[in-house]
């Protein structure tokens, strides 16, 4: 099984979710994260004190799929839906998952997804 982690711009979440669902992926877990990279943050201003905000709000999507095929579908879906062409669009990382369990039923691996 494969795990896809994608860090994207927050306002793209809805579109990415829709694209994934369309690609047949029906489960995912998201979290609010902050990114540091080439994209430059803005400056915050409090009574003359200027703070550069280097960590930029992003959303991380985690998806576990049963095989390479689904992984590729997911990657294409995200690549397309999250794309704006501007710096900071984010990254997708793929890694290996050894085992999956569905808590409700105890089903394992492919069946649990």
């Amino acid at each position, binding site marked *: 099984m494969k795990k896809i982690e994608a860090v994207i711009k927050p*306002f793209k979440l809805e579109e990415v979710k829709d694209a994934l669902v369309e690609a047949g992926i029906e489960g995912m877990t998201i979290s609010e994260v902050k990114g540091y990279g080439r994209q430059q943050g803005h400056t*915050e*201003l409090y009574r003359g004190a200027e703070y550069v905000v280097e960590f930029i709000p992003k959303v991380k999507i985690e998806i576990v799929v049963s095989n390479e095929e689904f992984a590729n579908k997911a990657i294409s879906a995200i690549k397309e839906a999250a794309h704006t062409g501007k710096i900071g669009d984010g990254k997708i990382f793929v890694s290996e998952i050894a085992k999956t369990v569905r808590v409700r039923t105890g089903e394992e691996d492919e069946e649990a997804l």
Partner: protein
Amino acid sequence: MKNKFLALLTLLALPIFAFAEDTLNTGDTAWMMVSTAFVLLMTPAGLALFYTGMTRSKNALNTFTMVMGAFVLAFVVWIIAGYSIAFGANENAMLQNVFGGFNHVMLSGVSWTDLSGSYPTYVFIAFQGTFAAITVAIASGSVIGRMKFSTWMVVVALWGILVYAPITHMVWGGDGALLFDAGALDFAGGTVVHMNGGLAGLVLAILIGKRAGYNTTAMKPFSIILTAVGAALLWFGWYGFNGGSAFGANAIAGLAVLTTTIATAAGAVTWMLIEWFVYKKATLLGVASGIIAGLVAITPAAGFVDVTGAFILGIVGSFVAFFGVVKLKKIFGYDDSLDAFGIHFLAGLWGALATAFLALNDKELLWDGPLKESGDRMGQFWVQVESVVVVGLWTLIGTIIVYYIASALTGGARVDEETEHNGLDESVHGEKGMNL
């Protein structure tokens, strides 16, 4: 009350004639100063929280700043010229219909010892200034999330001069003023404040266009708790708004205090029940909305109606506003972000018209007009219609003009797409609503 205004205006116009009966009454003075403070609190705390809680978190500070900034700028404009235009007495009878002139620019010709009836004229000026300032702040609710802050500031300044001050003059400007002479009943600002501000909001919302993603993405409120606190503070301040519009600590003020409380409580209960029947859920935003709808609906009538009238105004006011917010907006598809039009205009309109039928036929309460003179309710109704139409048209045209000037002066009224996406807090103000 009309007599108070008359006395005041005479006093201002003819400072030579001192009225024997014009001595300072400490109780009235205390009440009017308190009322001024109460109405002040309504904007930078009440309305600001009410709106901030309803906006998306990324625009929370922008929303607060638009309200607070509008208040301070509008008050400065009021002192510089608004008061003079609204409450000055123009020597040209034609102009006096709509425009009080520039005699009192920067309050020239008014001294700290002058009285407006039984309390200092300076207090009257401050009290009325808080009305001017809240009215334009109400309009901000319709354009939240997409208007440049600079454009908004220009709108505020111009609108106070071109729209608010003349309308106030027409309705409350004393002898020779258009709707005042016609005999319009507007106890505390149903037309002057709520219809006016609500309609200006709608006009601006239509001119500037919808927010990106309107109707396709979820636009969740930052925190309804803030909105509810704002509603509570508005309610509190409204005792100054309606009670202070009796211009003294008298029985009419007492009546206004009671009817205001009744209409508001009834409006809130009504909104809860409507939601319960429609959605099987009563929401806090609903209770808060019902409170505002009730407050707005009673405003033009607070010192004219009795207990039953107050109940009717509040209950129907909630139905009208609910309809405006839930149905009308969907039907016409405009993006009145925080429902300034749906609540303030509609409930204000309802109150202004219903006053003709619900006002007590009691000469001690009524102002000059068909109802007082001859008990002619239909005649009074047509006067109310006239005042609604005149105020509406003036606001409509005036706000369009103001919008285009402001837009031109600030290089377009709308923020760019990216700013709108990221939220105005970050780009426009460089602050964040909350750093946990």
